[in-house]
């Protein structure tokens, strides 16, 4: 059956309901309906209704237009058909009648469903929803359902035992559906198809995450005490899930470390009571293997009962043993670090405290030798050298800005040390002038610093203001120079007149024949010699004080030495009526190596003292010491003796046993001090035993080595050679006495002497070949010795003459002066006071060929 031509489907009772429905549409629906096989009428109606929409049903239901109509059912109106101009044949109507009743029934049910207020909601759902009647015939479905199955009618799945169930299906396109079916009390079946693809994937991801993160999970039904854990939770403790199941609270409390349980349970209780939202704790659980592992446990109440009681708690647990171990190690390291830091702080504080009270300051330089630290910036500020002028600069840069400082010392000493990374000590320099205009001197020391790997990292050092010290030292040195100069001057000033005394006396002595006169001249000579000795003592002492006394190392004969001392003192002892003897022990004849002059001085001093302090009895000298043992000198007298106290002070400078002794016996008091010093310098020792009124014994031991082989003992017999017969000698001296001495001495030796009183006269007296030797005093008025020498040398050179020996006569005969004289052109020199021995020796040596 078919409709042809323009046909209209009924009238609309309610325009609102029919909105959007066109007659064409209705016709096509009805056409389908009419074309459907009888048995499938329901299905056809349902499909038609689906295509038309529920609105059509409503329209039809309320249609009550008279005309060709078929009743749909009670209250459902009529199915109205307007076929066109021609009336429908009766047969058609008959055919339509069951259709109308079928539609009516369908509509009735549909309306029931449709009339529910949730209909729109269901229609709007994203989930696909379909409703079936108790026979499984589709009643309705929503938009999503139609979209899901555009080509397929809704079909109940018959899940479960028919009462409903849930199933999951995967569609060919990969989407995953969850299908839920429920049979209502009325027998209809509601089928909901939800797209759970996202959810399933999310779940899967979550599971992956949980497994990947090794997170144990648990939940805890508080009512039953049952707990559920995942396999990881069990594995964490060394168990499989079946091994630990079933898990309950007791399982857990049996595993937790007893020290942790109270604390953790309290945290859980707070969470359960709602005091805290979440629970979190780190604690130890016993591993299956017996040891404890650390876990971080975190959970929350996820469900509460009606009364607010916590019902279900769930959470996750991860193992943090390794973190804990690391944490412990870290803590250990942190503690150590803190300890070290506090130590360092203490050290630093100590350093600061010390620096604050120290006289000096501390400084530091970096590896570029730039100042990186100065400990007392206030001080530098005060003296006009602000720290910022020093810090960051090298020493060179700073010195460039302070040329005065640079020129005050030999900085190269410091620089070379810095270059080589060596330490330097006690370098003294003048600091920049302070604002108050005072001179300041600094002393610095520094040492390189290396890191543990041995890399040079800079310098650290100290500095101090040594102005006081430096100026005091400068003053002391000045004083010492003054003293030395004074002594040298005094020596010169005293020697010059002594020259007259001793020289003249020596000459006179040999000329006198009257015993009385001889005795008198002897006294003069001894007095002069005493004076000379005192002078020598003072010079010796000053040499010793200055550390300038040098000892010779020559072979000498102790026997000769003893004989010489004996010669020197025999006369004096005889004069005092003393028995005087010098004994040389057998075995002591071997030559020794030492300074014979100083050994003689020691012996001489001891014997002089012994004779001086002995009025009656005897003085004996014993020289002993076999090969291999020290040379021993023992001087024994029967003199006034000394108390123990006096002995103790014996060697002090300027001290005699008693100051009254000085008055009685004379002397400088230097003798014993010099003697002791000489003995000590020679590595020897001296001991004194004495008894007041009975005498004194001084014993000296000198560890001088024995000289191997023979030594020259046969010194030329000077006396025999001390002749200057026939020599023509010119002598210039401004001092009349000296001139007389020279003249007498030389004449006595057989020389022809010409004397003049200054250099000019000497030059004038000179004629080529007139003199064999010329003696020139150095210090003379008009023309001094040096100038006269030059004049004579000049004349000789002009005339191409051989140089006549010219000898300087001077009181200044120190080594460096001798060198000067020779450089000037003198050939030799003799020192004042002049002795005949020296004079003849020098002159003869000048003429030796």
């Amino acid at each position, binding site marked *: 059956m078919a409709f042809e031509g323009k046909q209209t489907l009924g009238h609309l009772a309610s325009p609102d309901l029919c909105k959007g429905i066109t007659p064409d549409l209705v016709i096509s629906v009805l056409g389908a309906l009419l074309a459907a096989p009888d048995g499938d009428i329901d299905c056809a109606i349902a499909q038609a209704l689906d295509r038309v929409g529920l609105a059509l049903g409503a329209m039809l239901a309320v249609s009550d237009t008279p005309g060709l109509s078929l009743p749909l059912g009670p209250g459902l109106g009529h199915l109205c058909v307007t076929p066109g101009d021609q009336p429908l044949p009766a047969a058609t109507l008959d055919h339509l009648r069951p259709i109308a009743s079928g539609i009516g029934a369908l509509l009735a049910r549909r309306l029931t469903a449709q009339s529910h207020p949730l209909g729109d909601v269901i229609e709007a759902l994203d989930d696909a929803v379909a409703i079936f009647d108790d026979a499984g015939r589709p009643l309705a479905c929503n938009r999503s359902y139609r979209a899901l199955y555009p080509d397929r009618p809704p079909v109940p799945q018959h899940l479960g035992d028919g009462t409903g169930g849930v199933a999951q299906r995967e569609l060919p396109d990969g989407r995953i559906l969850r299908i839920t079916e429920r049979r209502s009390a009325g027998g209809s079946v509601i089928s909901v198809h939800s797209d759970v693809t996202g959810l399933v994937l999310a779940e899967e991801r979550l599971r992956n995450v949980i497994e990947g993160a090794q997170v144990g999970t648990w939940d805890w039904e508080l009512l039953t005490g049952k707990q559920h854990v995942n396999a990881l939770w069990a594995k964490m403790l060394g168990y499989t899930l079946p091994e630990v199941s079933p898990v309950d609270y007791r399982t857990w409390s049996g595993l937790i470390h007893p020290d942790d349980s109270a604390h953790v349970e309290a945290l859980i209780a707070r969470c359960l009571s709602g005091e805290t939202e979440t629970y979190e704790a780190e604690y130890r659980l016993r591993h299956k293997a017996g040891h404890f592992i650390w876990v971080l446990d975190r959970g929350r109440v996820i469900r509460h009962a009606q009364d607010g009681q916590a019902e279900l708690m769930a959470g996750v647990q991860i193992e943090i043993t390794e973190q804990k171990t690391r944490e412990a190690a870290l803590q250990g390291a942190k503690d150590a670090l803190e300890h070290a830091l506090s130590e360092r702080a203490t050290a630093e504080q100590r350093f600061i405290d010390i620096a604050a009270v120290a006289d000096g300051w501390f400084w530091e330089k970096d590896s570029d030798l730039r100042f990186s630290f100065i400990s007392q910036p206030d001080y530098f500020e005060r003296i006009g050298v602000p720290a910022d002028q020093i810090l960051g600069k090298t020493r060179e840069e700073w010195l460039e800005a302070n040329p005065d400082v640079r020129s005050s010392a030999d900085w190269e000493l410091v620089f070379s040390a810095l270059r080589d990374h060596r330490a330097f000590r006690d370098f003294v320099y003048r600091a920049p002038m302070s604002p108050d205009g005072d001179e300041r001197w600094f002393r610095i020391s520094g040492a390189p610093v290396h890191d543990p790997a041995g890399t040079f990292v800079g310098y650290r050092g100290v500095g101090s203001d040594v102005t006081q010290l430096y100026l005091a030292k400068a003053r002391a040195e000045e004083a010492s120079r003054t003293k030395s100069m004074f002594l040298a001057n005094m020596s010169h000033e005293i020697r010059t007149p002594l020259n007259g005394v001793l020289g003249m006396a020596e000459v006179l002595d040999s000329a006198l024949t009257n015993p009385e006169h001889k005795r008198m001249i002897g006294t003069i000579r001894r007095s002069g010699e005493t004076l000379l000795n005192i002078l020598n003592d003072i010079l010796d002492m000053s040499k010793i004080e200055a550390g300038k006394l040098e000892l*010779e190392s020559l072979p000498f004969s102790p026997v000769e030495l003893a004989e010489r001392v004996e010669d020197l003192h025999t006369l004096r002892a005889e004069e005092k009526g003393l028995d005087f003897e010098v004994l040389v022990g057998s075995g002591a004849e071997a030559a020794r190596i030492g300074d014979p002059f100083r050994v003689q001085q020691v012996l001489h001093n001891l014997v002089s003292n012994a004779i001086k302090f002995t009025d009656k009895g005897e003085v004996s000298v014993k020289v002993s010491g076999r090969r291999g043992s020290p040379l021993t000198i023992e001087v024994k007298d029967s003199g006034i003796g000394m108390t123990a106290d006096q002995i103790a002070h014996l060697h002090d400078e300027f001290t005699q046993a008693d100051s009254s002794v000085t008055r009685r016996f004379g002397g400088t008091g230097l003798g014993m001090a010099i003697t002791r010093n000489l003995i000590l310098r020679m590595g020897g020792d001296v001991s004194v035993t004495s008894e007041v009124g009975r005498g004194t014994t001084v014993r000296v031991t000198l560890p001088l080595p024995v000289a191997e082989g023979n030594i020259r003992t046969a010194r030329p017999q000077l006396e025999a050679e001390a002749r200057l017969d026939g020599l023509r000698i010119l002598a210039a001296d401004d001092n009349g006495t000296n001139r007389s001495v020279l003249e007498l001495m030389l004449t006595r030796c057989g020389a022809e002497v010409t004397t003049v009183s200054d250099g000019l006269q000497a030059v004038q007296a000179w004629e080529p070949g007139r003199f064999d030797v010329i003696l020139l005093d150095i210090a003379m008025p008009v023309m001094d010795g040096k100038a006269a020498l030059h004049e004579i040398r000049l004349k000789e050179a002009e005339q191409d003459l051989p140089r006549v020996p010219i000898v300087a006569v001077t009181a200044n005969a120190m080594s460096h002066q*001798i060198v000067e004289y020779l450089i000037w052109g003198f*050939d030799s020199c003799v020192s004042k006071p002049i002795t005949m021995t020296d004079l003849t020796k020098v002159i003869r040596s000048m003429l030796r060929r």
Partner: protein
Amino acid sequence: MTGTGPDQKFRILLAEDDEVNQEVIKAFLANQSHIELTVVGDGRSALETALGSRFDLMLFDHNMPHITGDRVIRYLRSGNSNNSRTPVVRFTAEADHAQIRTTDGLVEAVLPKPLRAEVFLNTINAILRKT
């Protein structure tokens, strides 16, 4: 003689301003372990050194700055210095053979320049043995 003990060396002073000659003599003496050599380069230093300490032998060139070698020797022989009796060897280009002379107990030798090692060593060792 000062070099008495087994450890004690003969002390020799060389006064020579010519550096080449200094080196030659140092080379001659390099293997003479019994000799301790002090070298100075002019007459002034020579005199100062000789006044300062005693030597067993002094080797002198004649022409030296400040003071000639002969004058230094003459002074040393005239004074009371440590070295008034120390043997002296002079170097001279004027002599044609080595000679050792002893006058008044003073040993004086002359060595011709250029120096020959054998002659030089024989001469000084002969002097050192004698003293």
